[in-house]
């Protein structure tokens, strides 16, 4: 059962109070609040069936909207949207975002957040071409150092947030800005590029019309989903994110998990930078921050699907390709440039709000 890769974001109603207790059909002592016999079985099954339908709607509404959106675009521009290229354009173009979103996801799952993921990606995507292209270093060594820089940045974040207990907002915002500046420094504020046959082979070689990196992203999401649902580590991460004190009293090493999440975020952000360099061949360090919102938007939008209210990797994947489809279709309709930001921003707020409304209604009914 997949219900478990979940981390509840909705913490408003943390404790059931007296009057919410009354929402329950039965009280502690097994009687209905007005003292009559429990509700008839027939009534209960019908309400359960409609409850199930609602739950299903809450879980997969976004996928329905996705399908409708696809149909709409197909109806509008059947020639272009219906072509085989559309599929690979949508599914073959989002690998960097997948890794970056997963990077943001693992900090959010443990109840933290990291605003520096895009800049960590940027530092990797700048370091590799600078070392390998400008200084002629061995490409593999450059990759290791580049990703290592992001991991180091993640560890520094962790040190400040977890060990020194400084606000994660301050630390990661500062780190993000600092890394962007450093990337501009080492790249001389220009676009740096590198070409490597080896990298290209690993990341942009194609299988079934999609680059290998797509499958890496898919594998990453599946592995993360597995870890969160089926391993002690993942279960512990979710409890740390849901209630840190409960986790601590259960013998979970909370600080270690929080620290690890920041370092892991650095690693995945570094890998997304590596994929970016490998697929594009170069990077303009000043554009790094523009990757932040799409990644966060995808993670939060992902909480509206599969396990509503919970950060979950599969939901994030759906959200990424949902957003990519929307933007691709709108571009085919002739909108360009600005539409990306408008769609990401609006999509995020509207979808998450709708999911919350549906979820609340399915719960109280």
């Amino acid at each position: 059962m997949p219900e478990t890769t979940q981390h509840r974001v909705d913490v408003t109603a943390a404790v059931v109070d007296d009057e919410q207790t009354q929402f329950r059909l039965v009280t502690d002592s097994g009687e209905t609040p007005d003292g009559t016999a429990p509700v008839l079985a027939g009534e209960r099954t019908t309400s359960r069936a409609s409850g199930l339908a609602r739950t299903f709607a809450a879980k997969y509404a976004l996928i329905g909207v996705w399908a409708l959106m696809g149909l709409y675009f197909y109806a509008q521009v059947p020639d272009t949207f219906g072509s085989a290229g559309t599929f690979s354009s949508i599914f073959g173009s989002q690998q960097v975002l997948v890794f970056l979103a997963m990077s943001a996801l693992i900090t959010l799952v443990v109840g933290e957040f990291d605003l520096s993921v895009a800049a960590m990606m940027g530092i990797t995507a700048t370091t590799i071409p600078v070392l390998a292209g400008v200084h002629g270093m061995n490409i593999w060594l450059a990759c290791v150092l580049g990703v290592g820089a992001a991991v180091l940045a993640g560890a520094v974040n962790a040190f400040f947030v977890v060990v020194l207990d400084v606000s994660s907002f301050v630390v990661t915002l500062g780190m993000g800005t600092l890394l962007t500046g450093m990337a501009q420094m080492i790249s001389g504020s220009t676009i740096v590029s590198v070409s490597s046959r080896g990298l290209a082979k690993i990341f942009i070689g194609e299988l079934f019309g999609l680059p290998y990196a797509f499958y890496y992203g898919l594998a990453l999401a599946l592995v993360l989903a597995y870890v969160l649902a089926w391993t002690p580590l993942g279960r512990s991460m979710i409890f740390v994110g849901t209630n840190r004190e409960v986790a601590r009293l259960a013998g979970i090493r909370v600080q270690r998990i929080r620290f690890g999440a920041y370092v892991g975020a650095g690693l995945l952000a570094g890998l997304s930078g590596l994929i970016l360099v490998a697929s594009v061949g170069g990077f303009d360090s000043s554009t790094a921050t523009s990757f932040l919102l799409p990644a966060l938007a995808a993670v939060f939008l992902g909480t509206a699907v599969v396990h509503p209210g919970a950060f979950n990797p599969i939901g994030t994947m759906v959200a990424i390709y949902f957003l990519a489809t929307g933007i691709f279709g709108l571009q085919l309709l002739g909108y360009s440039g600005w539409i990306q930001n408008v769609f990401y921003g609006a999509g995020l707020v509207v979808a998450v709000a709708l999911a919350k409304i549906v979820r609340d209604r399915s719960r109280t009914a």
Partner: protein
Amino acid sequence: MTTPRLEARGASKTFGSVTVLDGAHLVVQPGEIHSLVGQNGSGKSTLVKILTGYHGPDAGMTLAVDGQALSLPVHWRAAQAAGVSVVHQDLGLLDHLTVSENIGIGGFVHSRLTGRIDWRRQDRVAEAVLQRLAIPVSPRALVGELSAAHRAGVAIARALRATVPGEGMMILDEATRALPRDDLARMHALLGRVVESGTSVLMVSHNLEEVLTLSSRVTVLRDGRVVGEGLDTAGLTEADLARLMLGKTVDAVVRPAVTVREQVAAEVTGLALDGHPPFSVTVRSGEVVGLTGLPGTGFEQVPYLLAGAARADAGTVRTTSGHVDLSRDGVCEALAAGIALVPERRGRDGVAVEMSVRDNLALPNLRRRGSRWHVGRGWQHRLTADSIQRLGIKSRSGEDLVKELSGGNQQKVLFAKWLSTDPDLLVLHEPTQAVDVGARADLLRAIGDAAAAGRGVLLVSSEPSDLVEICDRVLVLRPGQEPAELRTTDPDVVLDAIYSAQIPTGASHA
């Protein structure tokens, strides 16, 4: 008869298909303290929330203050204008602001022209209301630095700042719950001054003793209906009130006789506690040992120190499975040694309310039952089904989120969670807090069963009736003295031992 200060008739509230409040009446006379009592879920907080405008009532209710009808649902500003004020359970004070600022919030004295707050005049307003109520705090003091009783006083001063003496009604929504016993007396004197002037107080309280000594009349709710309207407290006893609230007499939980074995389950040695001599106790297998004391004297710390959740200066625990040095080891070592803690604050420390029952039950067993790379579901389902059945947890399934359960069932989940780790020593802190009678009986029975299975149980509680009903012996911690050991079935004996401890000379009835 004079016009009542507040008259609410036919108050009903339905959530979905559940009627929480059914045609309740409440009449408060001028200048009286009127109590509103009922169990959790009896509808009393719903009634208060209707009065404060948080909930809109169902059709058919009428509400009048001093004979003037108020439109429904209640608009708080209109109610305020009519003289109704409220002090919430958490008091709603901002610790980092001054008394004057806290009193002024929501109605600062400010210049018409610039909107700037006139602090001098604001301070004078605050001082006037503090003086009227004889609360000896300075308007410039920081609220965070005040004692509990003075904080409550400031909250009351805020509620009454605009009330003309002799008019209005203040709702006290369990605002005295957090007060230590000494401060309670001062608080009661303050409330006495408030009603002397003619202002009314509607008090919501769980403390029946307080209700009887303080209020002149009481309204009792049960299952959403009024079962006692405006009863005169003069002729009532706590037992009468309890019977009204519960609708039946409460049976004491009788524990099946268990022979305490010779085998020691856990031995605590030399635990350092502030203001107490080093604390040692031996809990035998099958034994339930109670631990209590005066609130605030440090006995509440014992469970957390024993479980490694807070670091002790010194002390060791030896159990059948291991040994813990409390000055060095943490939660993990304590768990490994078979010490499980059921903490007091279940929403904060006990269970993750956003997670399902099954996830919560499985949490402490993940490493033991799952391999590093895989946590199976089979044992989780078995554990969940077994716990639900054994403790009688009322939930649709193990997939229900804990926050969807009632308080008593949440507490059962918390208890089952730690019982599932098969501990040698089960440390419980206030395990029956804020649960209803049925759940309390289930929990106490489960504690007895856990002991009967050969565990040692340390029950840390300030609830004398729990202690005498389930414990083989009760230790009463007294500052600066060795703990007293009681073997009794009379809660009053325990109470006496706790409160006589205040007098170090020991002139006591214990």
